[in-house]
């Protein structure tokens, strides 16, 4: 079991000893939100840290804000940032290390193990509670979620409320850390890609109809891209909402910049955005599921990335985020890579 007091003590220590600038962790949200990202700067505030099955957010997303902030400072503070990560989140750190986006010295990693459970899917829980408000919840150590409501306690089996990605997770405890809370666990789930296989079984027409219906809902809020730790490009090739323009950028460069997709939320543009983003994440996505969680229209975006993760594993035996020194999937090759598509 993860001991929250130990976590708080360690947070307190590293802040007091000025070992880190601040800590990115989780705290209680307002109005009963079970967990939100929090930035702890003072040792006394480390008491605000929480750890519960609603700590879903991938906090590594905020490492790029830190990097941008440092780049703007004249005399940057080069101490690391403390960060609380789960197994999936820690793999994101490995990918960022692999890509030299950050260095190991930029982060002090407080790894927290999910042990034999994970995080909940809020929608699945809401369905189980049928309108009742959850005052608090936690795992009971026997793979049950115990939920306290106004009218008493409810016990729900973990498999019925766990996020789908947790059921397929290959890294239930962090793979990189400076200090680990909870037990180290390594399990290889038999069902790595079951969610994707369900859709693969559909015919082409059924799959087209499925995705057309989903993408018709898309309002191109770009929350999926904004929340992804790996979508850190200053200028996204698919749709630039953030031009990297300096005083030296010439008028010609700006005039000739290709507009790959229009802003209009029509099927052609929306499909293109999601497809290209998925391909750009091939070999980089660690399935934290945030893209799907944040989508206000409940579009199952995660399937696109999971499909490519499956391809990477089956075709190239490539695993994402376990080794910070491995080469990138799309910019390296081995002699034994499959060639049957080359005629």
């Amino acid at each position, binding site marked *: 079991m993860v001991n929250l007091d130990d976590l708080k003590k360690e947070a307190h220590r590293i802040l007091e000893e000025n070992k880190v600038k601040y800590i990115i962790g989780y705290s209680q949200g307002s109005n009963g939100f079970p967990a939100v990202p929090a930035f702890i700067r003072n040792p006394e505030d480390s008491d605000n840290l929480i750890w519960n099955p609603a700590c879903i957010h991938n906090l590594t997303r905020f490492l790029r804000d830190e990097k941008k902030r440092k780049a703007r400072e004249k005399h940057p503070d080069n101490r690391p940032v403390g960060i609380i990560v789960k197994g999936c989140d820690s793999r994101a750190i490995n990918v960022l290390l692999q890509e030299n986006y950050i260095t190991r010295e930029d982060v002090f990693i407080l790894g927290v193990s999910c042990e034999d459970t994970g995080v909940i899917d809020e929608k699945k829980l809401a369905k189980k509670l049928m309108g009742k408000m959850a005052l608090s919840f936690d795992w009971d150590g026997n793979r049950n979620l115990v939920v306290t409501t106004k009218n008493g306690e409810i016990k729900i089996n973990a498999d019925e409320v766990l996020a789908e990605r947790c059921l397929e997770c290959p890294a239930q405890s962090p793979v990189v850390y400076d200090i680990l809370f909870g037990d180290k666990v390594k399990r290889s789930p038999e069902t790595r890609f079951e969610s994707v296989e369900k859709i693969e079984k559909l015919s082409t027409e059924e799959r087209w109809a499925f995705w057309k219906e989903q993408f018709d809902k898309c309002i191109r809020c770009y929350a999926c891209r904004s929340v992804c730790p790996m979508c850190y490009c200053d200028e996204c090739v698919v749709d630039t909402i953030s031009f990297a323009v300096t005083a030296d950028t*010439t*008028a*010609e460069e*700006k*005039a000739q*910049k290709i507009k790959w997709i229009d802003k209009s939320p029509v099927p052609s543009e929306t499909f293109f955005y999601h497809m290209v983003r998925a391909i750009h994440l091939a070999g980089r996505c660690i399935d934290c599921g945030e893209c799907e969680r944040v989508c206000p229209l409940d579009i199952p975006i995660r399937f696109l990335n999971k499909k490519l993760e499956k391809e990477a594993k089956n075709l190239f035996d490539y695993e994402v985020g376990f080794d910070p020194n491995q080469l990138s999937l799309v910019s390296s090759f081995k002699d034994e890579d499959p060639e049957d598509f080359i005629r």
Partner: protein
Amino acid sequence: MSDNAYIPKLSKIIEVIEEAGGGRPIKTFRTQFVDVNGFTHKCGQCAMLSVFGKGESMISISSTPLVKDYLQFSILKSGRVTSAIHAMQEGDIIGVRGPYGNNFPIEKWKGKNLIFIGGGIGLAPIWSVLQTALRKKSYYGKLSLIYGTRTSPDIIYKEELEELKKEMTVHLSVDHEEEGWKEYVGFVPLNVLDKKPSPKNAVAITCGPPIMIKFVIQNLEALGFKDEQIYTTVENKMKCGVGKCGRCNIGKHYVCKDGPVYSWAELKKLPREY
């Protein structure tokens, strides 16, 4: 169709003048509406120029309202739309909609000395006031111009400035030493301090890069100008031009509707986000 503010009116380019070349090209375009009569504007107002297929760009009308034959726009080639405009030639059709924004309160400046201070392309938005004042000299006091650019090839309205020297005080400057340059060398705000225009019964009208405006205003205050005596015109990214798309606001004002002309007294009251 005539009531719809978003529909541009087709306008023919009747003249193209190359003002400055090099890395920061500036061209002046004179346009005539294909079939609109009676378009009028006030000094300081702008129009949205449309290049169909590329987009729109909000440009100050730099001709005086007293000239009815054409509208003049002096445009710095900066990005997608302005590059497309620069590629256009005499005879080509461009879309024009407007006029938008407020105007310089020139009728309030009777008898006052007008000091125009411009930098680079910033001379264009205040040119309409200068041209109007020239044509109504008896209404105003003494007219003078302090204008500077990075290098002498960047100077716009070169021929007009030569003519102007015969009718009013004109002080030019370039930022750095140049072979053959006989006038002031240095940034425009420093030239302002050098020429010491008197605040007595005067109005200063300035426009240029944001950093130039900032220091010009500072130096004018040092010379004794009051906030109400300093006027400028600001710029912001715009799309609709009519105060609805929410993009160009500085505080509660939309620059396209409540601006772009502000006295320093008014601008001071707005939040510093421009």
